């Protein structure tokens, strides 16, 4: 550890919220255009945040190196986002505004996000759409040629822009193409199949990274004037998640171990509409866009253990539990609420399907009302995907869905300038904690990734570079050598154990512990138990894992082994954080803290803060960033 005192200063400018970003930009120092190419910026990750940042920084004239573990930057997991991207364009005059998007996001996040950051996100949302349209992103259009919108994720205005069910793909390809243009111009050097395995801090500043070439196994050092992490979330700690198989926490976790505080690790989002688990071999869960909830009705049998097929259960013996409990929002309640209710009915023995872990999402009313054609036009690709996986036809029988881990709101702590507690280390997109509080609203992850990458980071990195005098150094510095040696040592250790269990077998067990005790609902006693179990399993991992092959070529088992080692440590911190947060808010539901009718009970008096954890091998240390709400008054969320 650095041994320095940590000041959690969010550096939010003073003034009226709508002026803050303008003011901050004006106050920033600029880097002389002629000097930009002398500054190297390392961007790790090439999803929406990383690719848009690398492309923009390259275009501004910096010398950029961009790294991704996939074979091409176009494969980053942003590509799998389906539903859409929000922007406060108010194209429909339905009452939307920057302030309303800001308000919805702060409220949706259950008052655990930083107001200034969220306001800026809402402001920038409109620029993102314009930027992406100019790039040729094929957004859906109305017959008159204007951009089409839909309402999404419980929003009461139509502010979601989309490209069929592949919005993430199209936005990512836009950013990827912009990135490749810079690669062609020689301003960005791309390092695919390269994984960051350590952060190098010199004199308190982030100065570089150590990577492993995943094809040759070579360990390499890269030096820069700033390091940007856009490496995504850590949902795969649960093993079964909607994340891509390669998504991992290694970059942010190793930066955390070098001194970057980790904020709100227990804030994880569970998405209500995924295809249920079907067997032990299952490697991931598939998300169905929550736009399905616009027309599908969610129900379970009224009686427990009712094994009849759905079409034989008469209307009177069905429980449309969301419509019953939340008459005004019905099936469109936010993700956390919908997920928790699904778990509750399954816990009562009313779940459906072979495993009893599922609820019905039924389109028969919508098909009757609108016709199968209209439903096919809206959801055809999703119905097809469902049928491909389950071999069941949702036009004939209701879909079965169950919640799954989808997104992590927690991440490395950053200030208003997206800089972590290590000067020169910036964190963008899902990898940081900043904008979604305790729960993320639909269609806002893409918005945040692109807002950070295109429109915020390129300014704030420049400000840091202009204001900071960095000592001359190179990759032969002792700090680089030490970090490289550490990476080699870890690799050697993993390959030398040759135990009796595979990495995946351990990962599955870890995932089950975290899901059972730190998933949709949590208790103090359960979390304490989980911490013990995680420690036990972790020590077994280091005794008994079997990582075959060598360090000198493509070794996918070795890649996984390093990532799972980090998931073990992060899982423990998640439980510690969940234990510490004695309230229920957003995705964090502590059973001890609920209202008499079973809704999440926040405690604004004691818990209105960001928990930011400092790494400690034995025990992490908690730092708090207090949150104040001047524009959106905290209220109990009600969707009744």
């Amino acid at each position, binding site marked *: 550890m650095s041994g320095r005192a940590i000041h959690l200063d969010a550096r939010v400018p003073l003034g009226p919220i709508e002026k803050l970003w303008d003011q901050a930009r004006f106050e920033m120092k600029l880097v002389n255009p002629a000097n930009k190419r002398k500054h190297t910026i390392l961007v790790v990750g090439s999803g929406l945040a990383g690719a848009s940042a690398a492309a923009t920084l390259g275009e501004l004239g910096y010398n950029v190196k961009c790294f991704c573990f996939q074979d091409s930057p176009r494969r980053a997991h942003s590509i799998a986002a389906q539903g859409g991207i929000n922007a406060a364009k108010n194209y429909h005059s339905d009452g939307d505004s920057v302030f309303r998007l800001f308000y919805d996001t702060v409220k949706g996040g259950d008052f655990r996000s930083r107001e200034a950051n969220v306001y800026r996100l809402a402001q920038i949302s409109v620029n993102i759409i314009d930027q992406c*349209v100019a790039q040729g992103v094929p957004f859906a259009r109305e017959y008159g040629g204007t951009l089409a919108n839909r309402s999404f994720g419980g929003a009461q205005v139509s502010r979601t822009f989309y490209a069929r069910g592949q919005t993430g793909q199209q936005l990512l390809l836009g950013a990827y193409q*912009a990135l490749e243009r810079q690669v062609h111009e020689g301003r960005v050097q791309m390092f695919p199949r390269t994984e960051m395995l350590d952060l190098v801090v010199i004199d308190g500043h982030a100065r570089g990274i150590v990577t492993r070439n995943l094809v040759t196994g070579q360990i390499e050092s890269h030096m820069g004037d700033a390091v940007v992490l856009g490496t995504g979330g850590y949902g795969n700690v649960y093993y079964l998640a909607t994340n891509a198989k390669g998504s991992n926490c290694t970059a942010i976790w190793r930066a955390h171990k070098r001194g970057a505080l980790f904020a709100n690790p227990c804030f994880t989002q569970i998405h209500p509409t995924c295809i249920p688990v079907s*067997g032990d071999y299952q490697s991931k869960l598939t998300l169905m866009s929550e736009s399905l909830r616009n027309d599908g009705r969610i129900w379970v049998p009224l009686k427990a253990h009712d094994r009849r097929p759905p079409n034989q259960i008469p209307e009177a013996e069905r429980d449309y539990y969301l419509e019953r409990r939340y008459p005004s929002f019905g099936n469109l309640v936010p993700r956390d609420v919908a997920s928790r209710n699904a778990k509750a009915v399954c816990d009562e023995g009313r779940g459906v399907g072979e495993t009893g872990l599922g609820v019905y999402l039924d389109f028969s009313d919508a098909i009757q009302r609108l016709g199968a054609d209209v439903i096919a036009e809206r959801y055809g690709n999703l119905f097809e995907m469902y049928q491909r996986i389950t071999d069941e036809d949702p036009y004939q029988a209701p879909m079965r869905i169950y919640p799954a881990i989808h997104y992590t709101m927690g991440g490395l702590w950053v200030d208003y300038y997206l800089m972590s507690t290590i000067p020169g280390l910036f964190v963008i997109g899902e990898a940081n904690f900043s904008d979604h509080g305790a729960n993320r609203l639909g269609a806002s992850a893409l918005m945040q990734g692109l807002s950070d990458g295109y429109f915020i980071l390129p300014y704030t990195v420049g400000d840091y570079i202009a204001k900071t005098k960095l000592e001359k150094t190179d990759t032969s510095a002792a700090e680089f050598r030490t970090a490289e040696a550490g990476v080699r040592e870890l690799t050697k250790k993993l390959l030398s154990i040759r135990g009796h269990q595979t990495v995946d077998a351990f990962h599955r067990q870890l995932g089950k512990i975290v899901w059972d005790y730190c998933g949709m609902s949590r208790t103090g006693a359960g979390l304490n138990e989980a911490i013990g179990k995680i420690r036990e399993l972790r020590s077994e991992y280091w005794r008994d894992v079997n990582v075959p092959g060598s360090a000198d070529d493509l070794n996918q088992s070795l890649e996984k082994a390093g990532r799972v080692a980090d998931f073990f440590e992060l899982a423990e911190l998640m439980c510690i954080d969940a234990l510490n947060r004695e309230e229920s808010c957003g995705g964090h539901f502590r059973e001890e803290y609920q209202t008499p009718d079973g809704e999440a009970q926040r405690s604004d008096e004691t818990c209105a803060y960001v928990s930011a954890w400092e790494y400690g091998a034995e025990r992490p240390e908690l730092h708090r960033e207090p949150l104040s709400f001047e524009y959106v008054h905290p209220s109990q969320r009600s969707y009744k």
Partner: protein
Amino acid sequence: MRLILQVWRQKGAKAPGKMTRYEAADVNPDMSMLELLDVVNEGLILKGEEPIAFEHDCREGICGSCGFMINGVAHGPLPATTVCQLSMRHFKDGQELYIEPWRARAFPVIKDLVVDRGAFDRIIAAGGYVSVPTGSPPDGNTILVPKENADRAMDAAACIGCGACVAACPNASAALFTGAKIAHLGLLPQGQPERNQRALKMVRQFNAEGFGSCSNIGECEAACPKEISLEVIARMNRDFIGASFEKR
């Protein structure tokens, strides 16, 4: 169910490869092809052997990482489906599956079923974009796009860059991949200023990478998991020829 797998094993780019036989018992028909390989690999690791290397990431058919030949067909027998979503119920009990990497000069094998598709990135880098800086472009609705054109552009833009088109083509041509990007951008008003130059640059790059020429066989369209139409190749040719004349 039980399946016999004949899998291409190759230690590295320079090493010789060969088919190796594996038996998979107790196959669950709901498993995906990749989950079957996971199970085989778990067994290999516990026996002290190296698992089969194969590329994968999202496992929901959108990232384009996965793909290999199954019995000579790119992504296997099911139309419009990548191997990550191909479930075992489409095979017969006891069936023998020959699994091989994409084969093309421009896609050298890295290990087992993993090939290097970097050539695709270089084709995009040569011109597969609209050259617009990050900044303050005009309001999105100042550029009107007829719905039909937006839909057709989206059809082409759905390409996931998996490489099945190249693997399926007897000439190992990248025409469908290149044409898809040219058609996507060429169908939109934003793509017009650079339309001809884009075709010229991208086609030149695709030739330089060692892909073969298109001879209108149509295997690519049949293999494409996103059902990209051959029409994109016609658009590519039109733009390319237009640009070639323009040069004179």
